[in-house]
């Protein structure tokens, strides 16, 4: 036996399946994962099974919300195993502590799991090779794994299925001594593989949380005070209970204990808001009853947030200047007042927006009270980006021990950050706790919009100067955003890794943060999706002021090719940045002659370890109808795992970004959200879809995630293009507010 690292050695276990077969189970502890600079999670664990008939089952433990992770992570395992993809089926893993953190967010699932998946596949391969050596009576060095077979150099071979039972008896290799495939020999990674659930989705058989059906289940709605923080005093209880199909109706008092989360970004989020629950025999009965609900609210202490006031206050803050200085390289004021320089000041604005996952929030919960043989128990079905976190809610709010909470993760009908926060599970559990049957809580679309954790709105007042040579002489960025009295608002303010803070030599960045009550949360590329709009627009403004070509000016700002933080793949690399900018520029035909009313706009953004540049071609008519004709995208996220999935994420990000910047905004007055449903909060329809031309630079950096980073550059690319087409500078989103209509 070779010398092994005991602590790691024990993490790999193997057991024979009933009927023979290989089952490999692996857990990576925090210490092993932290060695990889990319890895942020604590643990990970996966199963591979091979049945004697050759079917390879790979379990997916990461929530699938449309980002394609249920396909891409198993591809990595299959590749290292030498499996044929056609032999692989992917099954959802249950929620279980042995899988470690089962979560999806921040475009981290690929970087967090890539090495562990390779290890999983390579371990299985080595055990199959061990079995092959025994069965064929040959040296294992002369064996390779290909096409779900172990093949000897003589040509003889055994299928994985034939070897499965014996493979399960082989010693588990020490991960320290595993070798990995040369990427040039990949046959699965980097190819286009269709989503493993495409068949069930296309035939209407895929089950989302909202589709859960449990025996003896009843259906519920919940109505909260329109102003956050208000509580229900009374309601027309007798009238509601008399309605057909209604079983029960009651008030729930607010409860902050559900917000006591261990994950920092969840703290204070999933609190129970005071309201009225209605339970009935079917969904329609409770939706209909909800419409007839009359509630007396106590909202004396409730939110008084007003978007109108926020805009006015922000303009005053911009005029006053100052703010908390986050970074100052010095010399900014001198450059802004130097008569030889040309200067510019511009006020930018971006609204609150909603997540509007196509599947409204929902959760099914079944509470069983303690009896002589059992403690209090809770069973929960939901689509969640971090399903394990609902156990904390059960513990903190209802004092049900985590081991007595069973969570059944479901496919997510969209996540985008929304399903990282489990207020809907808080509500479902609080309702279920009052009754002795399972309850499915379904939110209406209006519930979903009014009670979102919004992408926070905000403002930035920008000042800049260019010198006589047309070079950037000063960058003064004043962020005017929001916080809660006791904690930060996700996505508001500057984090310190934005482009001017890390790459510009003559920059000052400050911020003024004021208190709000309106709930906000992560929304696809939080912070980046709004900051990209401001910074990348203002860079274009300065290029124009200097009379410079935008692409040339932007590339010059990047300076010498370098990692901003050496050895950290999560840091900007200016060389990678320049490469994607140049590629997008080249492929878009930057600088070519365009018809009247057409313009090209460029933007670059770095976030989620991804370097992305986009060029939009836009046409605008005399009635301010605008069409995005084409978007050319250049992306460097390292080697691509699933080409089809990667292109799909970019296409989706372009459409999502366009939809949001063109027509979406949430406003609030007196604490009340003003938009009720899609008639007031529209989504882009198919006719406006541009041609989307996607190019990848598969640099030799680690593969990183693509669920978010293609979205931020879209808005500034489009508004820069509108400027090029019309001479009109847009500094506020959505464009519909300025009379622009996306067609």
């Amino acid at each position, binding site marked *: 036996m070779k010398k092994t690292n005991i602590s790691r050695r024990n993490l790999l276990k193997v057991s024979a399946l009933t009927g023979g077969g290989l089952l490999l189970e692996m857990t990576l502890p925090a210490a092993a994962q932290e060695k990889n600079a990319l890895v942020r999670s604590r643990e990970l664990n996966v199963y591979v099974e091979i049945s004697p008939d050759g079917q390879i089952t790979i379990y997916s433990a990461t929530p699938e*919300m*449309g*980002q*394609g992770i249920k396909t891409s992570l198993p591809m990595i395992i299959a590749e290292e195993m030498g499996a044929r993809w056609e032999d692989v089926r992917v099954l959802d893993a249950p929620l279980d502590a042995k899988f470690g953190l089962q979560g999806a967010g921040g475009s981290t699932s690929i970087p967090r799991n890539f090495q562990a998946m390779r290890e999983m596949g390579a371990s299985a391969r080595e055990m199959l090779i061990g079995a092959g050596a025994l069965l064929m009576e040959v040296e294992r060095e002369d064996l390779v794994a290909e096409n779900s077979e172990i093949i000897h150099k003589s040509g003889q071979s055994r299928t994985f299925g034939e070897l499965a039972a014996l493979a399960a008896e082989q010693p588990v290799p020490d991960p320290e001594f595993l070798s990995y495939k040369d990427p040039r020999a990949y046959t699965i990674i980097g190819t*286009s593989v*269709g*989503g493993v*659930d*495409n*068949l069930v*989705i*296309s*035939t*209407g*058989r895929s089950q*989302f949380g*909202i*589709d859960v*059906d449990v025996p003896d289940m009843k*259906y519920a709605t919940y109505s909260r005070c329109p102003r956050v923080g208000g509580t229900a005093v009374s309601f027309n209880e007798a009238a509601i209970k008399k309605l*057909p*199909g209604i079983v029960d109706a009651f008030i729930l008092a607010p409860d902050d204990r559900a917000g006591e989360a261990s994950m920092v970004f969840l703290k204070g989020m999933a609190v129970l808001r005071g309201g009225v629950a209605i339970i009935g025999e*079917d*969904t*329609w*009965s409770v*939706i209909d009853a909800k419409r007839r609900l009359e509630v007396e609210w106590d909202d004396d202490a409730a939110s008084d947030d007003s978007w109108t006031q926020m805009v006015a206050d922000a303009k005053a803050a911009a005029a006053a200047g100052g703010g908390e200085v986050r970074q100052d390289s010095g010399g900014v004021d001198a450059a802004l007042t130097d008569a030889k320089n040309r200067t510019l000041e511009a006020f930018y604005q971006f609204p609150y927006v909603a997540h*509007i*996952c*196509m*599947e*409204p929030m929902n959760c099914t919960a079944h509470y069983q009270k303690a009896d002589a043989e059992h403690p209090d128990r809770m069973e929960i079905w939901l689509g969640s980006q971090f399903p394990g976190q609902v156990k904390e809610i059960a513990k903190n709010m209802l004092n049900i021990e985590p081991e007595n909470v069973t969570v059944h993760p479901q496919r*997510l*009908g*969209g996540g*985008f950050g929304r399903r990282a926060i489990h207020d809907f599970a808080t509500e479902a559990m609080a309702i279920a706790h009052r009754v002795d049957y399972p309850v499915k809580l*379904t939110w*209406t*679309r209006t519930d979903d919009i009014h009670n979102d954790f919004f992408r926070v709105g905000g403002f930035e007042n920008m000042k800049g100067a260019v010198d006589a040579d047309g070079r950037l002489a000063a960058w003064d960025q004043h962020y005017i955003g929001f916080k809660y009295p006791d904690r930060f608002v996700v996505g508001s303010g500057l984090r310190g890794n934005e482009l001017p803070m890390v790459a510009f030599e003559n920059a000052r960045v400050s911020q003024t943060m004021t208190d709000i009550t309106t709930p906000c949360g992560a929304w696809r590329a939080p912070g980046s999706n709004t900051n990209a709009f401001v910074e990348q627009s203002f860079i274009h403004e300065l290029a124009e002021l200097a009379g410079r070509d935008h692409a040339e000016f932007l590339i010059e700002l990047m300076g010498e090719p370098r990692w901003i933080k050496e050895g950290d793949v999560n840091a900007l690399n200016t060389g990678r940045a320049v490469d994607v900018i140049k590629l997008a520029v080249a492929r878009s035909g930057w600088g070519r002659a365009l018809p009247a009313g057409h313009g090209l706009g460029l933007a670059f953004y770095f976030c989620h370890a991804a370097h992305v540049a986009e060029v939009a071609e836009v046409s605008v008519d005399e009635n301010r109808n605008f069409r995005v004709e084409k978007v050319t995208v250049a992306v460097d996220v390292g080697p691509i795992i699933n080409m*089809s*999935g990667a292109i*799909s*994420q970019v*296409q*989706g*990000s*372009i*459409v*999502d970004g366009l*939809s949001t910047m063109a027509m979406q905004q949430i406003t609030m007055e007196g604490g009340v959200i003003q938009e009720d*449903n*899609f008639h007031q909060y*529209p*989504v*882009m*329809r*198919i*006719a406006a*879809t541009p041609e*989307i031309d996607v190019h990848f630079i598969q640099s030799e950096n680690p593969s990183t995630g693509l669920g978010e980073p293609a979205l931020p550059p879209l808005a500034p690319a489009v508004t820069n293009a509108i400027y090029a087409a019309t001479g009109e500078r847009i500094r506020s989103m959505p464009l519909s507010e300025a009379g622009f209509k996306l067609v």
Partner: protein
Amino acid sequence: MSKIRLKVNGDTHELDVSPDTPLLWVLRDKLKLIGTKFGCGIAQCGACTVHVDGQPMRACVLPVSTVSGEVTTIEGLADGGNLHPLQEAWIEHDVPQCGYCQAGQIMSAAALLETNPAPSDADIDEALAGNYCRCGTYVRIRQAVHTAASYYNADKGAS
């Protein structure tokens, strides 16, 4: 409550429901046909699209008592063991992301192909104008409808 007679995917059901119940909730809660989705309740997003006598309808605003024709849902679109050409094309083009809206998209497209076997991009845009996709799969939806149209015509020619 009243007795309602409803024919769905070839089967006739006698149902005891309130007559103003939208068809959507009868399909989902009573018949357990969960492929038809709830998205907005006001006929804006198309997630609930079904066919009534071949016409695409938004089931979330259609009182069940007004439905006299035959209802087809996504579960009834395949012809026995054979996928509908749209379903084949949806898989081939790897259209779905989260997948929630796709049944509605496919049902709208299926109604289009019945009347227009060779749709242009503009025809597709018009027929699918009522269907939101928040994930932004529109590029592939268009491609898949074109591909399905070619299969559809080949099938017709063969029969």
